[in-house]
């Protein structure tokens, strides 16, 4: 099939919009099904974890700096640093490591 980038973008936008707007407009009460509630609760953690590892190892010029970014990211997030600080720490450790490695 011939694929078009703007078609891709429109599909992403439409799906993303539907996901956010449908509950807000349709659902008026709490979801009571225990399984769906639990499933939706766990999904974000699992999907973000799956997307992060091992992809982070291939994002940098050397897998070693990827590993360092992962360790520093997990450590600083565990210590309670916010989104911005954790992201920045990962960037800095990669930059510093690759001054030596690459």
């Amino acid at each position, binding site marked *: 099939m011939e694929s078009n980038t703007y078609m891709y973008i429109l599909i992403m936008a439409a799906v993303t919009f539907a996901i956010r707007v449908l509950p807000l407009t349709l659902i008026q009460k709490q979801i009571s099904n225990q399984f769906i509630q639990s499933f939706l609760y766990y999904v*974000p*953690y699992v999907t973000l974890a799956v997307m992060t590892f091992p992809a982070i190892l291939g994002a940098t010029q050397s897998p070693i700096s990827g590993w360092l970014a992962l360790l520093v990211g997990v450590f600083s997030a565990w210590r309670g640093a916010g989104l911005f600080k954790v992201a920045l720490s990962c960037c800095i450790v990669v930059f510093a490591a690759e001054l030596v490695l690459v």
Partner: protein
Amino acid sequence: MILRDENRQAWHEGMKDGIPIGLGYFAVAFSLGIAAFNAGMSPIEAFWTSALCNASAGEYAGITMIAAKAVYLELAIVTLIANARYMLMSCALSQRIKPGTKFRHRLLLGFYVTDELFAISVARKGYLNPFYTYGAIMMAAPCWAIGTFIGAVAGDILPLRVVSAFSVALYGMFLAIIIPPGKENKIIAYLVAISFAASFIFSEIPLFSNISSGTAIIILTVVISAAAAILFPHKENKEES
């Protein structure tokens, strides 16, 4: 009915709270733009992706699919899975909107349910005045779209060393979302570890490694989350409404 002065006050408070969010967005959007550049997208395409989707992980997953020249249905499913958490947030937010709030407010609020804007919106006392969120959106959303555009431009001109460093910003942000809750809830900590291991196995074991990364994300997310939901049903500690 809400008075106009109240709306204006809420709007100003929202703008103030939106500034740090905008700064954080800019940095993350920048790395997203670099990812878009690496996927072969133009800065304008990257701009529209961010302006229309407003989703970090969801956009990243989508960009991965675009780079892989996935079929449209596959992209739609991946987008659905990667953004599934917004459905949960949107459900929660629906409980905080005053009954009888106009449909257009629900549409506009829905368009901008992001981790950060959701967090500050539900943190408001009582029913949410939509104008508070609009104020924050006005500060944060342009940073997101323009940051992505600049990232995609910079991907082309910045030295490889700097691009490499920025490429992990997004993963750092993901870690900042998934790691801290593991301190309170050990099940989440184990789930994250299991997800890491399973994802690693999928990418390394020859039997699985010819499955596209997008499909692997879907399969692993559904299987692991469903298993966790069956084995460890999550008790919502919010009181019933």
